[in-house]
Structure formats: C-alpha cells, structure tokens
C-alpha cells in the first residue's frame, strides 16, 4: 500500500508542475512578437488589415493574455485543447494522428540503443582497463558527442544516396512490414545513437561496480564458472539501474525526434512542433509541450516506482 500512496502522491505533485509548464509556455509564446495571423497575412496581397483584425477576433487572439489563458485552461479542463488556427482542426486530433509515427521511430531507436549498449557495456566492464574497454569508452564518447542532425545527414548521404541501400520515401506499407522496418533503420539509428552511448556507459559502470562486490568474489571462490557469475548474478543486478534509466531514455529519445524528424522528413510530432513554432500555432505548441511534459513526468514516476520496487531500501522511506 505504501507504493500506492507514493504513486498517488507523486501524481498529485505533478499537477502543479504541469500547470507551471502551461503558464510558462503560454506566457512565452504570447510575449513572442508576431502571431499566426501575421503569418497568414504577411505576404498575401488578398488579405487586408481588416482581415487580420477579423481573424484575430475569430481566433480569440485579441483578448488580454490572462483572459486567453483562463479561457484556454477552462477548455483544457473539459478536454478541449483548442483548434489549430490555420486548419481549424482540433490540435489534439493532430497530435494523435502524428503520435504513432514518433512512437515507431522512438521504439526503433530504443531497441537499437539496447542492442548496442547492453553487450557493449558488459564487454567493457569485463575487460575493464584493457584495450577493449578503451575502445568502447572512445566509441561511447563519440556517440555522445556526434550531433544527431549531422549524423543523420551523413547517413543519408552515404547509405541512402551514394550506396543507395535505403529508400528515401515512406514505402506506404503497414507499420510492421519488412520494408517499413528497413525504412526505419537510418532515422532509428540516428535517434538511438546518443541514447545507446549513454546506456553503454551506465551499463559499464554499474556492471563494474557489481563485479567488485563481495558476493561475486564469493561466487568465484566457490568455483562457479565466470560465465555463470556474470550472466546469472552480475548482469541481473546491474540491469536494475539500467532499467530505471531506460525510462528516462525513452523521454529523451522522444524529444530528440524534433531534430531527427526534420532531417529525415519524418511526419511525426517533432516536425509538427518545429512548424508550430515557426507559424506561432500557439494551441499546438501548448499541447505538444504539455504532452511531452506529461511524458517526462510519467517517465520519472515510472522510474521511481521501478526503483522503489527493486530497491527495498528506498521504499520504506514512504
């Protein structure tokens, strides 16, 4: 029951945080010069000043900021996140429509990260201080240091254009078909590289710590084969910290989509956000920041719960 109480308390505590997120976003976007109407009329000789005034009134953009905020908040509490001004559609519909694309990309990046990081981290930890460790340390640092947009561009240039191994357009097949998965490879690798490098470093550290513990020495002393020691005991324990981090990595992968989607022209939430910023679609900006905010808060919560479950020392704090 402790855990339940803890979860409830943490969920309640996240409400003011999300409220803060919305206030800050709302305030910042409203202080920003220009609005969506200015984008519509800027270079349209058919739109007069009267049209601009008319549209601002229609969109409710001529009220004082605080009135707009209260209206917005009231609507959000009833589940209405407002309309996308240029298309007149519900912004939440837009977000739901784009979400699967971003999730598919993120999931692929995540799987890629795990596939590289876990074996890489184990290898580095076992060979700590040897050349293999240095190589993996260097590789991990490179993975963290390479700008993902540049990595994406270079992958496209080499593998897609020069070697012609990957298609450039969505094959328009069902999401789990082989051609779709093949198409996901380059953006997935791009979005997963940094996460994979980070995960590898953490895996290495936690594994190395674990290997130094007494039970390992004891197990070895008992004459258990090194393989069994590593795979059965050490790996399980060191995965605990990796599991908790994986939740955070998910959030970071999703936010990395802003850049990667732009590089690959991927029709997900990230590219939608960049557009929303450019044309000041305030409702869309708000719903996406709130959405990612919820996501991050949830990821943190989840990580804490997992951590609490796995490490009894923490649980009794609550």
């Amino acid at each position: 029951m402790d855990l339940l109480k803890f979860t409830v308390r943490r969920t309640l505590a996240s409400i003011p945080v999300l409220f803060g997120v919305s206030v800050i976003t709302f305030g910042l976007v409203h202080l920003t010069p220009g609005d969506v109407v200015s984008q519509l009329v800027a270079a349209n000789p058919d739109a007069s000043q009267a049209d601009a005034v008319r549209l601002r009134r229609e969109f409710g953009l001529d009220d004082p900021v605080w009135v707009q905020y209260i209206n917005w908040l009231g609507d959000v509490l009833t589940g209405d996140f407002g309309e996308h001004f240029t298309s007149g559609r519900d912004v939440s519909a837009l977000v739901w429509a784009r979400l699967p694309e971003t999730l598919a990309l993120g999931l692929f990046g995540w799987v890629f990260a795990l596939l590289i990081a876990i074996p890489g981290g184990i290898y580095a930890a076992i060979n700590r201080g040897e050349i293999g460790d240095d190589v993996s340390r260097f590789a991990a640092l490179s993975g963290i240091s390479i700008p993902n947009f540049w990595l994406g561009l270079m992958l496209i240039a080499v593998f897609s254009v020069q070697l012609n191994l990957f298609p450039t357009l969505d094959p328009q097949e069902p999401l789990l078909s082989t051609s779709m998965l093949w198409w996901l490879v380059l953006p997935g690798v791009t979005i997963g590289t940094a996460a994979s490098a980070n995960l590898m470093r953490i895996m290495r550290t936690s594994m190395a710590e674990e290997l130094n513990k007494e039970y390992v020495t004891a197990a070895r002393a008992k004459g258990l084969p090194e393989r069994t020691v590593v795979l059965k005991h050490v790996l399980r324990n060191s995965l605990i910290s990796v599991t908790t981090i994986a939740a955070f990595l998910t959030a970071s992968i999703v936010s990395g989509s802003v850049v990667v989607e732009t590089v690959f022209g991927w029709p997900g939430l990230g590219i939608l956000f960049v557009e929303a910023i450019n044309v000041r679609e305030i409702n869309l900006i708000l719903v996406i920041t709130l959405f990612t905010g919820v996501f991050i808060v949830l990821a943190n919560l989840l990580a804490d719960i997992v951590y609490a479950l796995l490490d009894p020392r923490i649980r009794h704090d609550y």
Partner: protein
Amino acid sequence: MSTERGRIRVSGFETERIADHDAAEPTGDDAEEAEDDPEVQNRWVRVIHQLKRDRLALTGMAVVVVMLFVAVFSRPIVVGDVTVQPLSLTPYDPAQTGVGDRYDSPSLTHPMGTDRLGRDTFSRVVAGSRYSVTIGFVVTALAASFGVIYGGVSGYFGGTTDGVMMRLVDVIFAFPALVLAMILVSLFGGGFIPLVGAFALVGWASYARIIRGEILKVKQNEYVMAAKALGARDKSVLFRHIIPNAIAPVVVQATLSIGTVVIGVAALGFLGLGFDPGTPEWGTMLDAERDTLITGAGGTWFWWTTVFPGMMIFLFVMSINMVGDAVNDALDVQVDDVRGGGG
C-alpha cells in the same frame, strides 16, 4: 535532444526523497573529505594528476585550447571603433562572396572548398568556432553561477523557501530542453546574446538541483553546525563552507554540459532558429548546404560543405567530453549523465 542531457537522472525527481534519504545517511568519501579543507584541496591536486596521465583527456584539452585560441584570433575583434584584436587567421573574409567559384572542391587555395556563393569554407568554419565555442563556455558559466546560487539558497534555507524554489526547477525539468530553448529563441529572436540567454535559462536548473542535493548532505556536517552555533552569518556559512565543498559535482556537470550546449546551439542553427542564414555558424551552415547532399541524377555530392562544419562540431564536443569524462572519473562523483540524442 541535446540539452536534455544531464537533466534526467535517477536520483533526481523527488526532491524530498533526496533530502530525507541522503541527509539520513551521508555517504562515504564526499562527506568525510568535506570535513577538513586540506582534503578538499588534495582532491583537486589528485584530479590534475590524473588528468595528466590520461592521454585522451590531454588530447581533448589540447584541441579545446587550440579552438579557443582560434575563436579569439580568427577575425579581428572591434569594440566600438577600437580594434582590440587585430589578427586575422582566416585567409578570406568569411562573408565575402565570390572569392572562389561556386562549389569549388578543396584545393590549396581553398582547403575546405567553397560554398554556393563562392565563399571560402575554411574561413567560414574557422570563423564559426567563435560562435559555437564561446556560446558553450559563456552559457555554462552563466547557468552554473546562477544555478549554484539558486540551489545554494534553496538548499541552505530549506523549508518552504526550498519547496517553492524547487517547484520551479521541477517545471524547467518537465520541458524537453531543446523544446524550451526553441520557444525562448522564438521569443528573443536569433543571434548570439539571445541564444546565450535561451540556453542559460534552460541549463541552470541542473546545477541548482545538484548543488542543493550536495548541500543537504554537507549541511548535516558537524563543522557547519558548529559554525552556525558560533554565530556565523548565513551568507558566510553558505559561501565559505558549504558551496566550496559541494562544488565537485558541479564542475563535472559543467564540463560535460559545454558539449551539450554546443550541440544544442548548432541544432537550433540547423533548424533555422539560431542565427541568420549566411552566418558562418556551424549548424546554420549545415542547414544552408543540406540540399547539396542529394543533387539529382548524376549529380556530385559537394561533401565539403556539409562534412567540415559537422566535423568541427563533433571535434570540439568530443574533445571537451574527453576532458569532462576524465574529470568525472578523477573526482569520482557520480553525475549520472543520461543524455538524449546529440541535439
């Protein structure tokens, strides 16, 4: 997202928990070291020793120093009407069009070729170091200073002050950092100072949280209690005793975050939100030349226009991270630097 890095950590979210948990059992080395100042100094000596032995870190350090040098001397610096720094390392004016033909491939006169307007890519890449490198350092310095003070005040006073102040930190953390930076940049507009402002406003929260955690640990120590009992003023206790002892993880976080900031700035440039097109900033250059990746049937890839600017970002960030990694190891503080994508 780059600036996301370092912000999500296992031991981060529930501030109360850290307070209770960590305060209850001040762990190991840090606490002991903090008890007498000579030990603290020894730690820094040890760091320098260890860095000297780490060839990777030394290489990184060398590259960083060279790039800083280049950033200063690439083009003359004029303040007002006075030329403060007259040297110019770049062979051409990076903004001058037509010093070569359109898309000349690398040659002796243009070691990195020319771009679409016949500008010298080498000059542009070198001049570009000024933007990215300085922003990295300036942002980190600003964010760390503010974050340390903020977190210091919050942690030291505790109670309601702490509760309120840390809620703001929570809110900042609930934003994906690049997203918040994008919103801020669209508010401030592009350019050097707005970008510094945007990234500093995004970055300070990490330091605040770290320093607060550390302070909660240190605060329990006897000598602080003793100092307070002897009537030392809050300010002096905070700045004389607590912060110097809690600074190690901040240093680690700072060295590791310079690279993050550099990538973040370049990412905004790449998204067209950083500097004006035409500015020789690395990300902006990549954005402007990305069409050259694919130039149609039988077209050539003018690789030099995209490879070199990206390479420079990578080189600088890699170098600074090698230093940061070594500092991290040497100080042996666990800053769980869980970083997202490189941008």
